C-alpha cells in the first residue's frame, strides 16, 4: 500500500508539473504570437485576417489568389481599398472561418472568394490537418471551434493543452519576430525564376460534393445577403484545358450560385486568352506576376460591369 501511495504521489507531482509548464508555455506562445503579428503581419496571415485586416474589398482564397489578385491595381481601377487575405494551401473550412469572422469584425463592402469546383468535395485528411493554424482561436472563435471539432471527436480534449495548440508553430513565430515579408496588401508576386513556363495539360475533372460543406457554403452566402456584403465568387485561370461537362461539383457550384443569385466569374477559367499563352503562368496551377496583372485588370472590368448592372436594377 505504501508503494501505491508513493506511486500516486509521484504521478500527481508529475502531472502538476506538466500542467504548470503547459500553462506557462501558453503565456509564452501568446506573447510570441502578438510580437510576431506586430512585427510581420504578412507572415501571420491567419491571425492578421482574423484580427486586423481591413479593406472595402477583401479577397479570400488559397495560393492561386495569393499570387493572382493585385490590390493596388484594383484600387486604381475601382477606386476603393482592397486587401488580399488569401493563404496558401488552405481548404474550404479555413475560408469559412475567415469570411465569417471578417464579416462580424469589420464588415467589408465586397468579398471576392476564389473557389474551384473541387473545394466543395469532402475534405482530405491533409485539408483537415492544415486547419491547425486555427487552433489558437479554439476558445475565442465559434467558427474555428466548429471546424476543428470536425477533425475528430477528441479535439476538445487535445485543445486543453496549450502546447498542443501551438504544435509545430514555434519556428514560424520566431522567424516572424525577426523577419519581415513585403507584400502588396497581401499580394505576393510569383516569378518564374527556377521554373520553366509550363506546358498545357488537358483532361477532364469530376469532383463530388460534401453535404456539410455545401451547407456551410450556403450559410456564408445567406450571411452575406443578410449583412449586405456583396459576395463575388471567381474561378482563377489555370494552365489546364479542363473538360467540366461531367463534373458534378462544378455543376453544383453553378447551380447554387444561380439559386442564390451570387455572381460567379468563370469566363477567364478555361479561356483562350490564358490557355494560349504559357508566359502568363508560373506553373500549371498558378499565374505569375504578368498573368496576375492581366487577370486583375480583366476581373476589375467585370466587377465594374456587375456592380453597374446591380445599380440599375
Amino acid at each position, binding site marked *: 500500500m505504501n508503494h501505491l501511495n508513493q*506511486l500516486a504521489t509521484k504521478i500527481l507531482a*508529475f502531472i502538476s508539473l506538466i500542467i504548470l*509548464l503547459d500553462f506557462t508555455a501558453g503565456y509564452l506562445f501568446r506573447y510570441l504570437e502578438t510580437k510576431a503579428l506586430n512585427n510581420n503581419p504578412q507572415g501571420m496571415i491567419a491571425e492578421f485576417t482574423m484580427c486586423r485586416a481591413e479593406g472595402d474589398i477583401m479577397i479570400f482564397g488559397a495560393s492561386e489568389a495569393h499570387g493572382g489578385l493585385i490590390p493596388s491595381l484594383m484600387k486604381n481601377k475601382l477606386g476603393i481599398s482592397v486587401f488580399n487575405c488569401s493563404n496558401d494551401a488552405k481548404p474550404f473550412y479555413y475560408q469559412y472561418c475567415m469570411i465569417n469572422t471578417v464579416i462580424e469584425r469589420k464588415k467589408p463592402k465586397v468579398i471576392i472568394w476564389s473557389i474551384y469546383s473541387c473545394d466543395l468535395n469532402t475534405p482530405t485528411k491533409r485539408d483537415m490537418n492544415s486547419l491547425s493554424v486555427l487552433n489558437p482561436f479554439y476558445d475565442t472563435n465559434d467558427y474555428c471551434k466548429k471546424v476543428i471539432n470536425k477533425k*475528430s471527436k477528441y479535439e476538445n480534449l487535445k485543445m486543453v493543452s496549450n502546447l*498542443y495548440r*501551438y504544435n*509545430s508553430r*514555434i519556428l*514560424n513565430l520566431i*522567424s516572424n519576430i525577426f523577419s519581415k515579408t513585403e507584400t502588396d496588401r497581401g499580394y505576393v508576386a510569383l516569378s518564374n525564376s527556377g521554373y520553366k513556363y509550363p506546358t498545357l495539360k488537358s483532361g477532364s475533372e469530376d469532383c463530388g460534393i460534401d453535404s456539410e460543406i455545401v451547407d456551410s457554403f450556403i450559410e456564408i452566402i445567406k450571411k452575406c445577403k443578410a449583412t449586405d456584403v456583396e459576395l463575388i465568387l471567381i474561378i482563377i485561370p489555370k494552365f489546364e484545358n479542363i473538360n467540366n461537362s461531367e463534373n458534378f461539383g462544378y455543376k453544383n457550384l453553378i447551380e447554387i450560385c444561380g439559386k442564390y443569385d451570387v455572381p460567379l466569374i468563370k469566363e477567364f477559367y478555361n479561356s483562350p486568352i490564358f490557355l494560349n499563352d504559357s508566359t502568363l503562368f508560373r506553373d500549371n496551377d498558378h499565374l505569375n506576376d504578368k498573368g496576375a496583372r492581366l487577370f486583375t485588370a480583366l476581373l476589375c472590368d467585370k466587377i465594374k460591369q456587375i456592380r453597374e448592372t446591380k445599380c440599375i436594377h
Partner: protein
Amino acid sequence: MTFTSLNFLFFFTIVVVLFNLIPQRVRVWFLLFASYFFYIDLMPVFAILLALVTGCTYLFTRIIANSKSAIGKHRVLVLGIIVIISPLIFFKFFSFVNLVITTLLFRCGLHVSLPTSSYILPVGISFYTFMAIGYLIDVYNEDVESESNIGIVALFLAFFPIILSGPIERAGNLIPQFRKLQQTTYSDLVAGAKMVLWGYFLKLCIADRLGLYVDLIFNNIHTYNGTTLLFASVLFPFQLYADLGGYSLIAIGVARCLGIIVVPNFKRPFFATSMSEFWRRWHMSLIKWLTNYIYTPLSFGLRRWKMSGIVTALILTFIISGIWHGAELTFFVWGLLQGIYLSIEVVTLKKRSEFKQKFCLNKNPWYILISCVWVFILFSFSQIFGRCGSIGDAFYVIGKILNVLGKIEWLKLMPSSLGLFSLTLLLIKDFLDEYYPNRFLLFENKNIIIRHLSYAFILILILTMGVFDSGQFIYFQF
C-alpha cells in the same frame, strides 16, 4: 488504431489497468482478447488469417514434438513451413507474379488480363509469419518445447505490442514469460513508460518531421538539384532509424508495462565502425532471425566451399531480406549491396585486423570517427535504392548527386528543421550512451527533480514539435 493515435493510449491504459486487476490464470486469455481486439480494429477480415496461421503453427509443432521418427519430423517441418509461409508469399508477391505472367504472355503475343488482386497486404503478416516459422524450427531443433496451451501460442503470434512491426520475437523468450504472467512491478511500469516516451519522441519529433522533407524531395527528384538530393539521402537513414527504432521502442515499452521483456531492436547503429557491426545494431531482431533460419543453414550447407560458401550464403540471405522488403528490383539491389559490403568485410577481416593492431587504431578516436562516417556513407548509399520507386530513379538520383550541384532547398526544410534539432538530441544521447555509459543520466538520474524535469522536457518537445495526425509508419507495408 496505430501507436500514434489517441485511441491507442486509451486502449493501452485500460489494458494495463485491467491486466493487473484480474486473476493470474485468465491473464493469457485477457491479453489474447486485447491483442485480437487491437488487430481486428485495424484489419477485421485478416484476423481470420492470423487465427488460421496460429492453428497451423500449433498443430505442426505438436506433431513434430510428439513424432518419434526423424524423417517424419523433418517432413512435417517442411510441410509446416510451406503452409505457414504461403499466405505471406501470396499477399506479398501476388501482383508481382501477376505482372510477370502478363508480361510474358504479352511478349508471346497474347493479351490476357489476369484477375487482379485488390487486397492490401495484411498488416503484420511478415512479423507473425516469421515468428511462427522460427517457433516451428526451434521446436524441430529441440531448442524450445512445444507449447500445449493453444492460448499461449496464439498470444505469442498475436501479442499486440509487437504484431504490427516487431521486434520479431522468439518463442524461447516470450512463451516462458506468458506461462507466468505476474502483476506488473513498479520498476517495470516506470521503465516501460520511459521507453514509450522516448519512442514517441523518436517517431513524432524526428522521423515524421524529417519525413516531411525527405518525402518532398524524393517524390520530386526531377525538380531538385543534386546537393538537395544528397542532403535528403543523408537524412533518410536517420528518419528510418527514428521511425522503426521509435516504433520498436514504443512496442518494447508497452510490453514492459505488462511485465514482459521483449528483445531490443536497435543499438545505436550509427556508432558502428564496420558494416558487420552495423548489422548487429540495426533492426537486430530481423537480422537475428535471418541469421538463425536462413544464413546459418545456408552457410552450413555450403561450408565446404570455405570463404566462397560464406560469401554466397551472405549475399543470398541479404537478397532474400531485400526482396522481403519489396518485390522490386530496387530492393534486390539494396540486398545485393548489403551482401557485397559484408562479403568484402569478411574476406578482408584478417588484413584489417592486422592493420588495426599494427597502428593501434582500435581506440583511436579519429579512426573510429572515420569508420563510423564510412559505414554511414555505405548505408545511406544503399538506402537510395531502398527509398526510390524504381531502379531508374535510383540511378537518376545518384547521377544527379554526382553531377548537378547547387544550393540546398533550405526554405523547404523549414518544417523539418525542428526534426534536425530533435535528431541532434538523439545523437548526443546515443553518443553518451556509447562512450560514456552511466555518466550523464537524465531519465535514470538519481535526483528526482532532474528525472521529472527531463520527462517533462521530452513531453513538451513532443507536444510542441511532434507531427500529429499524420502519415503512416514506414514499416507497415512490409
